C-alpha cells in the first residue's frame, strides 16, 4: 500500500492518530494508552498485515519518551513507523507487544533495561544487559555516571 | 634376530625365576617379587609408550590439519610431552570441596589399573607375554568393561553436573558397545577354537585371519574397530568428555596428576585395543606370508616378530587417530542407534556366518 492508502485506512479505524511524513517512513503518531488496538489492527488486519517488527526502540526527549516501532509487511512490502508518546517520564508505562511479535520480548527487555519503560503484561520483564541491581537506566539523557572517565 | 629376542625373553624370565627361587626360600614371596618386577617393567614400558602416543597423536593431528604440531621443545618437538608431564606433575591436584573425596581420588587409579591389567595377555612376540592365560580373550573383554566403573566413579564423585552427565553417557555407551566388541572377538574365537592368545596367533601362521576369513572376518574387524573406538571413549564417540557440550565430561574437575592418569589410561586403552585387533585379525607377531613365494616369506621371517606386532598395532592406532581428527561427534541417541540398529544385528548375523564357516571349513 502507498502511504496515502495507509493514512486513510488507519484514519478510518482510529480517527485520533496523527501522521508525520517528513522522514523516510510514514510515521503514525499515537498516545501510549491507545497503542495496543492500533498495533493489533496493523498486525492482524489483512490490509496492513505487518508481520515483521524489524526495530523496536525508545527515544528520550527529556520531556517525554517516544516508543518507536518499525513495521514491515512481507506480503504487501510496505513499511512504516508507529510512534507512541509516553508523557509520564518518571514512571513510564506502556502495553507490551511481545505477544504479537515474539521478537518484541527481548527488545522490550532491552528498552526496559536501558530506558526504564515498564511494559505491562510482559511475560518476563527483567534487565537484559545490566545486572539486576544496577541503578538507573543508562540511555536516559538524565542518567549520570559518576565513574565515567571523560576524555 | 627374531629368535634371539624371543628366546632371550623366556630365558630371562626363567633365569630370574630360578635366581629368585634360589635366593628366597618362601614361595609366596618369590611370586610377589616376580609380580612386582613384572609390574615395574610394565610401567617402564607403558610410560614411554604413552609419551610416544601423545607425541604421535599431536603430530598426526597437526599434519592432517595442515600445521606443524609441536616443534619447539627438543628436536622436532619430541620433548613437548615431557614438558607437559612436568607441568602436570607440578600442578596442584584440586579436590572439589563438596566431592566424595575417597571416590574422587580412587577413580583415576581404578581407571589406570584396569587398563594396565588388560595388558597382561597381550603377546608382543613369540613367548613374549606377561601371562599366557588360557582365557585370554575373555579376560581382556572382562577387564576392559571394568573401566566404566572408574569413569562412573569419577563423574559421580566430582559433584559436578557436567561430570555426572558425562559419566551417565559413558555408562550407557560402554555397556552397549561391549556387546559388539564381544561378538566380533567371538568370531575369531570360533575360527580358532581357543581363547588363548598364543593359540590365536599360532593359528595364523599360514595367513592372517583377515585374509583367511574372507568377508565375514573383515566385517567383524571393522565392527571391532568402530566398537572399540567407542569403548575407549575416543572421538567420534567421545561423548563422555564431549568438550563442546560438557566442557570435559567426567574429568572436568580433575587437575594435575589425577588428570594425567586419565590421559595415561586413555593412551594405554588405545594401545590395548589396537594390540588386540592386531593379534586377533592381523596375526599378532606373525610375519606376512604369501602362499608359495618362499624367498619373500623368508625375507618377511627375517623381520623380528615384535616389530611386526608393533607395526600392525601402530597402523590401527593411526586409523583410530584418523577417525578422531576427521569426524564430527555423534549425538548420544545416535550413538546408541548405531550400536543397536546397525552394529549389533550385523555382528550377530556375522557370528552365525562365521560359525558356519568354521564348521564347514570354508576358510582358507
Amino acid at each position, binding site marked *: 500500500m502507498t502511504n496515502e492508502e495507509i493514512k486513510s485506512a488507519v484514519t478510518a479505524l482510529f480517527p485520533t492518530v496523527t501522521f508525520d511524513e517528513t522522514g*523516510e517512513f510514514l510515521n503514525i503518531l499515537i498516545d501510549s494508552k491507545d497503542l495496543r488496538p492500533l498495533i493489533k489492527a496493523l498486525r492482524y488486519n489483512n490490509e496492513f498485515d505487518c*508481520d515483521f517488527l524489524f526495530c523496536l526502540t525508545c527515544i528520550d526527549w527529556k520531556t517525554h519518551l517516544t516508543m518507536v516501532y518499525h513495521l514491515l509487511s*512481507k506480503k504487501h512490502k510496505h513499511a512504516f513507523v508507529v510512534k507512541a508518546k509516553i508523557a509520564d517520564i518518571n514512571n513510564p508505562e506502556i502495553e507490551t507487544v511481545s505477544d504479537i511479535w*515474539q521478537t518484541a520480548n527481548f527488545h522490550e527487555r532491552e528498552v526496559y533495561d*536501558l530506558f526504564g519503560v515498564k511494559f505491562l503484561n510482559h511475560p518476563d520483564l527483567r534487565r537484559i544487559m545490566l545486572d539486576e541491581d544496577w541503578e538507573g537506566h543508562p540511555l536516559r539523557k538524565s542518567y549520570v555516571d559518576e565513574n565515567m572517565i571523560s576524555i | 634376530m627374531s629368535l634371539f629376542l624371543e628366546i632371550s625373553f623366556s630365558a630371562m624370565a626363567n633365569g630370574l625365576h630360578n635366581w629368585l627361587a634360589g635366593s628366597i626360600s618362601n614361595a609366596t614371596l618369590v611370586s610377589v617379587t616376580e609380580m612386582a618386577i613384572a609390574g615395574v617393567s610394565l610401567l617402564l614400558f607403558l610410560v614411554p609408550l604413552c609419551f610416544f602416543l601423545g607425541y604421535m597423536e599431536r603430530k598426526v593431528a597437526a599434519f592432517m590439519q595442515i600445521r606443524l604440531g609441536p616443534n619447539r621443545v627438543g628436536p622436532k618437538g619430541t620433548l613437548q610431552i615431557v614438558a607437559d608431564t612436568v607441568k602436570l606433575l607440578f600442578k596442584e591436584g584440586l579436590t572439589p570441596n563438596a566431592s566424595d573425596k575417597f571416590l574422587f581420588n580412587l577413580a583415576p587409579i581404578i581407571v589406570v589399573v584396569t587398563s594396565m591389567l588388560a595388558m597382561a595377555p597381550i603377546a608382543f612376540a613369540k613367548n613374549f607375554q606377561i601371562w599366557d592365560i588360557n582365557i585370554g580373550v575373555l579376560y581382556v573383554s572382562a577387564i576392559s568393561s571394568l573401566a566404566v566403573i572408574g569413569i562412573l566413579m569419577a563423574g559421580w564423585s566430582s559433584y559436578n553436573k557436567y561430570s555426572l552427565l558425562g559419566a551417565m553417557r559413558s555408562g550407557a555407551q560402554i555397556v552397549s558397545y561391549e556387546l559388539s566388541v564381544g561378538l566380533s572377538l567371538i568370531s575369531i574365537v570360533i575360527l580358532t577354537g581357543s581363547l588363548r592368545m598364543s593359540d590365536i596367533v599360532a593359528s595364523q601362521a599360514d595367513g592372517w585371519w583377515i585374509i583367511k576369513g574372507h568377508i565375514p572376518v573383515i566385517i567383524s574387524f571393522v565392527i571391532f574397530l568402530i566398537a572399540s573406538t567407542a569403548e575407549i571413549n575416543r572421538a567420534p564417540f567421545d561423548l563422555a568428555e564431549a568438550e563442546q557440550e560438557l566442557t570435559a565430561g567426567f574429568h572436568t574437575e580433575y587437575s594435575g596428576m589425577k588428570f594425567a592418569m586419565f590421559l595415561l589410561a586413555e593412551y594405554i586403552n588405545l594401545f590395548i585395543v589396537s594390540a588386540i585387533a592386531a593379534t586377533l585379525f592381523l596375526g599378532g607377531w606373525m610375519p606376512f606370508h604369501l602362499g608359495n613365494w618362499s624367498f619373500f616369506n623368508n625375507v618377511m621371517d627375517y623381520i623380528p616378530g615384535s616389530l611386526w606386532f608393533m607395526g600392525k598395532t601402530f597402523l590401527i592406532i593411526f586409523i583410530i587417530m584418523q577417525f578422531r*581428527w576427521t*569426524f*564430527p561427534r555423534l549425538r*548420544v541417541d545416535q550413538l546408541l542407534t548405531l550400536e543397536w540398529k546397525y552394529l549389533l544385528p550385523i555382528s550377530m548375523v556375522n557370528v552365525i556366518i562365521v560359525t558356519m564357516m568354521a564348521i564347514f571349513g570354508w576358510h582358507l
Partner: protein
Amino acid sequence: MSLLGEDIMTEEGEFVINIGPQHPSTHGVLHLKVWLDGEMIKKVQPHLGYIHRSIEKMSESLSYRNFIYATSRMDYLSAHINNQACALCVEKGLQVEVPPRAQIIRILMAELTRLSSHQLWWGCTGLDLGAVTPFFYAFREREAVLAIMEESCGARLTQNYCVPGGVMYDIHPNFQNRVKDVIKQIKSKFQEYDDILSGNVIFEQRTKGVGYLSPEDAVSFGCTGPTARGSGVSCDVRKWFPYDGYEKVQFKEILETGGDCYARYMVRMAEMKQSVYIIEQLIDHIPEGDFQAKTKAVIKLPKGEFYQRVETARGELGVYIVSDGAASPYRIKYRSPNFSNLSALGHMATGSKIGDLVAIMATIDLVIPDVDR
C-alpha cells in the same frame, strides 16, 4: 556429604546447567541457563550483557565521523558491513552521492567480509560438532581473504574503511590481482568443504531435523539473514532494499525450506558461492574516479530520523539515527541481527538434546559482541 541428587537439583526438582559464559562451545561470552530432563532440554534462557559496552550511549557523544569505528567492535566478523551501514545512514542524512568507484569498492569489501565471516562460521560449526580439522581448512582460506583486507584497509578485522561519502582511501594497486588469486583458491576448496563436513553422514545426522524454526516463527522472532532464509523466509536486504548499487549486481537470494540446522548450513554454503560470484562480476569493472565524495570537515545531520539497513553476514543490521541538528547523533540505535536471532534460540532448542543445542548455536552463528553491543 549430602546425597548428590538432593543438591544438584533445584528445589523444584529441576536439573539446571549453565552453559557459558566461559564454555568451549559458546562463541563469546554467552551465558545460557539450560533446564534439563536427562539429556532433553526443557527450557533455555539466555543471559546477556557480559560484553555490553554501551556503544549506543558512546555514539551519542561522538561526532558523525567518529562513531563509525565503534561499530567495528559490534559484529567484528562483518566489521566492514557495519561501518558501511553507518556511513550509508549518515550519507542518507546528508544526501551525499557516493561516487560509483567507492560503491563498487564497498560492495567488494562487503562480499569479502561475508566470505571470511562464513568461512570462520564453517570452521566453528565443525568445531562445535566435534570435528576439529575443518577449522584449520577454513582458516587457510580466511587468512588469504584477511590478507586482502590488510593490504587495502590496513587492518584485518576492524578495518574502519568506510567514511561518510565513500571509503577512506583508494584500494591498493595489488588489490585486483590478489582478489583474483584468492577467489581462484577458494573456488577450488569448496569441494573439500563438502567432502569433510557437508557430505559426512555424522554431520547430516547431527543437523538434519534439528532446531526446526517455522517460517512464521522466523518472522515473528525477527530472524534475518541465513537463519531466516534457512526457513524459507525471503529477507535479503540486498534484494529488498538495495543499497550501494546492489541493484546492479546479479546474484541469487539463497532460500532453503528445511528450517533446520542443515538448511541454515546449506544457505551459508551457497551464500559463499554467491559472494564469490558477485566478486567475480565486479572485480574487473571497478570504475575510475573518486573514491570519496566531498564532505564538510564537521558533519551535521539535519534534524530528523534516518534508518538504514544492510545485510551483514548474519542478517539485517539497522542503524537508526535520530538527529537534532547537532554534530553528534541525539539517539542512535543499532538493530543488530544477532540480538533477534538469539531470541529464537530458546524456541528452537526446547525439546532437543544438549548436543543439538550446540548445533543450533553454531548454525545461528552468534557473535556475542553484536548481541550485547
